[in-house]
C-alpha cells in the first residue's frame, strides 16, 4: 500500500484540477461537475485518513458529504434549468445581475 502522502498528493491534484475547471469553463453544468470533482477529491482524502487512523468516523463523513452533494446537485441543477429558461443559456458569464 502507498503511504498517506501519496493520497494527499492525488487528492490535491484532483482538487486543483477541479478548481482550474471552475475557473476556465463557462458552462454552468460543467462548473457543477467540477465542484463534484473537488468534493470527490476531499472524499478520497477523508477515506485515506480514515484508513490510516483506522477510524470509521472519516468514512461516515464521506457518506454525509455524498448526501449533501446529492442534495446540492439536485438544487443546483434546478437553478440551472431555471437560468436556462430565462436566458436560453447556461453561460455563467451572462450572469452579471449581481452588480445591481
Amino acid at each position, binding site marked *: 500500500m502507498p503511504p498517506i502522502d501519496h493520497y494527499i498528493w492525488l487528492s490535491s491534484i484532483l482538487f486543483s484540477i477541479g478548481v482550474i475547471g471552475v*475557473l476556465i469553463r463557462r458552462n454552468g453544468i460543467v462548473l457543477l461537475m467540477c465542484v463534484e470533482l473537488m468534493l470527490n477529491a476531499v472524499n478520497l482524502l477523508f477515506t485515506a485518513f480514515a484508513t490510516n487512523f483506522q477510524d470509521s468516523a472519516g468514512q461516515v463523513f464521506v457518506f454525509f458529504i455524498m448526501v449533501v452533494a446529492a442534495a446540492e446537485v439536485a438544487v443546483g441543477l434546478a437553478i440551472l434549468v431555471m437560468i436556462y429558461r430565462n436566458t436560453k443559456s447556461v453561460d455563467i458569464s451572462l450572469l452579471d445581475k449581481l452588480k445591481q
Partner: protein
Amino acid sequence: MGSYIAIALFSPLLGFTISGLFGRFLPKNVTGIIASLSVFVSFVCSIMLFNHLHNGGDAVKLETFNWIAAGNISIDFSFLADKLSVWMMMIITGVGFLIHIYSMGYMHHDEGFYKFFAYLNLFIFSMLTLVLGANYVIMFFGWEGVGLCSYLLIGFWYANKEYGYAARKAFIMNRIGDLGLLLGIFMLFNVFGTTDYQTVFSSAGTANSATIELICILLFVGAVGKSAQIPLFTWLPDAMAGPTPVSALIHAATMVTAGIYLVARSSVFFVSSELASTIVLVVGLVTAVVAATIGLKQNDIKKVLAYSTVSQLGYMFVALGVGAYSTALFHVTTHAFFKALLFLGSGSVIHAMSGEQDIRFMGGLSKKLKITHFTFLLGTLAIAGVPPLAGFFSKDEILAKAFYGNGILVFILLAVTSVITAVYMFRLYFLTFHGEFRGTEEQKHHLHESPSTMTIPLIILAILSCVGGGLGLSSLFSHHHFADTFLSSVLTNANIPHPSHLFEIVVLVVSVVLLAIIILMTRSYYTKKQNVPTSADEETGFGRILSKKYYFDEIYKTLIQKPIEWLSNFAHDFIDRKFIDGIVNISGRGVTVCGNYLRRVQTGNVEFYLLAMVVGVIAFLIIYQLV
C-alpha cells in the same frame, strides 16, 4: 446672643418671602411696612449686638449646620458677629431701614412695588450674610447674593433695553472680581485647609509671605470688582439705571463698600504684605483721581453722584493701602450717611421733576423743594469736607494717615481730589437748586415737595451727616476716637503716628479757605452767570475726554468685547464647522471615495468572483505558510 444674629438674618429673609410670594395680594402700604419692619427688626438686633460688644462682650458666633463637606473641604454655615461685622451691620440695617421707608414713597406708583421690596429685603439679607459670615465662603455667598440683587434691581425696569444691559454689565464685571475672590479662597483652602476667620487669622503667621501676598492680591481683585475700582469701575455709573433708592442703598452706602469690608476683614494679611498694600493704595488713588475728574463733566445728577461714589471708594482704598483700616471704615460710615442722603435727595429731585435726571434742565428748585434742598446742601457740604460735618473728619483722617503713612505725593493727590470733589459737588448743587428753572413748563407746574415718607429719611440722614463725624473726632478736638477704639481689636492697623496738632490746624484752615473760594466761584459761575454745561459731544479738548469718561467703555469694547465676539464666531464657524467637522467629514468622504473605486471591483461577474476567491485562498495559504 446668637439668636440675635439669627433674627437679624431671618427677618429680612422672611420679609422677602412674604413680599415676594404674597405681595401681589397685599395692599402696597402693607407690603412696604412689612418690608421696612423686617429691616427694623434687624436693626434692633444689631443695636443689641453692638451694645453687647461695646460693653466688652465676646464676639458672638452662631453655628447652624455643615454646608459643604468633601474631602479636606468642610464649610460650616456659621456666622460671626464681631465688632467689624456689627459695625457694618449697623450701617446696613440703619441706612437700609431709612431707605426702605423712603422707597415706600418713591416707588408708590410703580406696578412692581412688591417685587421691589422683595428684592430690597433679599439684598439686606445677602448683605448681612456677607458681613456676618464666619468664613470666607459664607462671605462669598453673601457677596454673590448682593451681586445678584444688584443685578435684579438695576434691571428693575426691565422693559428698557439699556437698563438690562447696565444690569448685565454690573453682574459680569462683578463676576470678574468674584473669580479673583474665589481663587483667593481656593488659595486659603490650599494654605490653611479652612477659611474660617478665626482659624485662618490666628495661623496667618505660619504661611510664607509670598503666598500671603498672592492671596491678598486675589482678594483685592474681588474687592476691585465689587467696589468699582479701576479697571472694573465702569459698571457703577451705568448701574444708576436702577431706581434711586437702590442707587442709594446698594451703589453708595452698602454693597460697594463690601470690598472695603473684605480688605479690612483680611487686614491681618494685608498688613504684612507690602506689595498687595501698595497695589491697593495705587489703585485706590488712581480711581479717586480719575473718577473725580470724570465727575466734573457729567450732566446726569445720578451719574455725578456715582462718580463721586467711585472716587470716595478710592479714598477708602487709599486708607486701606496705607494700613489705616479703621479710618477706612470710619469713612465708609460717614460716606454711607452723606452719600445715601445725596442720592435720596437726588431721588426726591427726580421725583419732583417727573423722572428728569439731566441737571441742565433743572435749576432753581430750592424754592419748591425746601426740605430736599436743605438736606441736599448739608450732604454737599459734608462730602466736600466742610467742618464740622461728618465728611470733614473722615477725609481729614485719611489725608493725615496718607501723609504720615505714605508721604507727600499721595497726600497732595488726595488733597487735589478733595478740591475737585468740592468743585463738582457744588456745581451740581448750584445747577440743580439755584438759578432759573430750565425745564419745560409742564415740569415747572408739576414741581412739588416729596411726601413725608421721603423727607423724613432725608432729615434723619442729614442729621447723621452732620454729627457722624463724632464717631471719629480727630485728636485736635477730642482724645477719644470712637471708631478707632471700637474697631482696633478686630483690625490690625498699621502703626501710623498720630498727626501733630499743627498739621491738623493747617489742614483745617486751608480746607476751610479753599472751600469758601470754591463755593463762591462755582456760585458765581453757575448761578450768577447762568452758565449751563454743554452736552458731551460739544465738548472740546480735555473736557471731551472727561465727559466721555476717558473712553473706558470704548476701550473695553474694542479690547475685550470685540475680540471675544470675533473669537466666538471664529471658533464656531471655523474651528468647529470647518476644522473638526472637516476632519469628521474627510473620514466620511474618504470612505465614499474608496467605495467608488472599490465598486468597480464588483463587476457582478460570477467568474470574476470565483477567481478572486481562489486568489484570496491562495494568498491566505501563502501567508499562512510563510508565517
